[in-house]
């Protein structure tokens, strides 16, 4: 039995969902509501003591890291291969995923969460915020959430993150000039990774992503958004993300092929 504990088809939460829909593997989706911080609940910490999402559980084998879990899914299940057969392109795939994990995703998470989260937390009393903070099991994550809850992320850190995202957009555009997908001729786990985080860029005003400024990235977004597996994965959400993905398809002129899917 394959179970996925995660939030919406968005960023790290979305990676196993996009991977499984592309791979056409059946799974049980346990929705963890990040808005209610269910990932820090005692019930969830019994499954993943670190309180992070996603968690993928296959026949009792618990996986808490999304990039290795996606490699596992491609390795353990039948279905279309999501890793290029050639060792060099496989290296490229992993290089892109590492760059996402270490540089791009933390930068984007910092920028996005500092736009969205502090106003909500500032409405809560200090005592209430401290109580929420105490539920977070690891010190690194507690530190990050503390900055969010008390709105103390240094501005210079946020600026540095924006710079990193701009560099990443240019770098991906350059890679996609060489090949239609990030790790060669075929769609791979590298595309899953970047799509899960970058799917909304055409509607994000903060960064310049359009047919003129980043033509190769733009066409890649169109190719990926047109894929039935990707559309099915974005259809799994419960609200904003699914609606956003549909709006992006419209902005890109991409037809919606898979209406609804089983969760």
């Amino acid at each position: 039995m394959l179970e996925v504990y995660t939030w919406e088809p968005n960023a790290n939460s979305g990676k196993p969902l996009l991977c499984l829909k592309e791979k056409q593997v059946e799974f049980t989706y346990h929705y963890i509501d990040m808005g209610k911080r269910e990932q820090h609940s005692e019930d969830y910490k019994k499954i993943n003591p670190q309180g992070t999402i996603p968690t993928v559980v296959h026949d009792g084998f618990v996986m808490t890291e999304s990039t290795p879990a996606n490699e596992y899914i491609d390795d353990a299940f039948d279905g279309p291969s999501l890793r290029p057969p050639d060792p060099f392109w496989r290296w490229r795939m992993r290089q892109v995923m590492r760059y996402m994990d270490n540089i791009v995703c933390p930068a984007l998470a910092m920028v996005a969460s500092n736009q969205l989260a502090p106003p909500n937390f500032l409405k809560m009393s200090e005592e209430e915020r401290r109580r929420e903070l105490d539920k977070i099991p690891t010190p690194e994550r507690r530190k990050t959430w503390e900055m969010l809850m008390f709105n103390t992320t240094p501005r210079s850190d946020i600026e540095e993150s924006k710079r990193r995202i701009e560099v990443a957009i240019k770098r991906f555009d350059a890679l996609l000039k060489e090949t239609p997908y990030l790790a060669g001729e075929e769609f791979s786990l590298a595309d899953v990774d970047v799509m899960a985080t970058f799917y909304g860029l055409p509607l994000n005003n903060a960064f310049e992503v359009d047919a003129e400024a980043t033509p190769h990235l733009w066409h890649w977004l169109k190719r990926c958004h047109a894929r039935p597996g990707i559309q099915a994965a974005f259809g799994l959400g419960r609200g904003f993300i699914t609606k956003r993905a549909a709006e992006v398809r419209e902005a890109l002129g991409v037809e919606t092929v898979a209406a609804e899917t089983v969760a």
Partner: protein
Amino acid sequence: MIALYHGGPAGHSGSVLVMLAEKGVEYEDRRLDLGRFEQHDEAFLALNPEGMVPVLVVDGRPLTETAYILHYLEERFPEPRLDGANPRDRYRTHWWDKYVEGHLAPALAIVAGSRGAPAVAAAGVTRLTPERRALWIKALEGGFSADEISGAQTTLGRAVDQFERALDETAWLNGETFGMADILAFPHAERLGDLSDVPPGARTLAWLEAVRKRPSVATVLAQRGRETAFALGPEAPRWG
């Protein structure tokens, strides 16, 4: 043709040297003198703008990131199999890739950096990418804050537990046979005794000894001299 640019039989470079020995692959040996910061020379930065060893050059294409160089070698030279016997063991290999690069190596770099980096390192720092430049300047100026150093020690203390737990579950890091996770983690794990406030546990010490006895590892370790150059590892995670 395969050429390895490396910094000698320690750290990340040590892992690739062991992997090449395991696979019996012939390669051109291009050792850089990290003590003289040859990794910041323009010729090397053309291969890796981050100024980090090792780099494996295959048919003119430079491959970076130690864990992925190991996977490349595994896939190109499948014998003996070192990435794990089944999908679960292979997941463990990928898990350790991420853990070593994302947590262990950056924390070791901060603690080692806080003990003072050699001043000569300034050579070539301005030529690096902005991320690497900032990290080097911090290490050179003794700029790791007390917070960063204590955070790194927390990470190392948890790493000590992580190794003990993993080695309780399986004989080697990625399963019941020696493999890539052992090759990748070993050069970092052996620094825990010196750099971590919490000393490594009994299972970890026994595992370190078992790894040292592996013929490929013994051969590589035999090339070690007394001098070890200071090398700055990867950047610590910026946002949990």
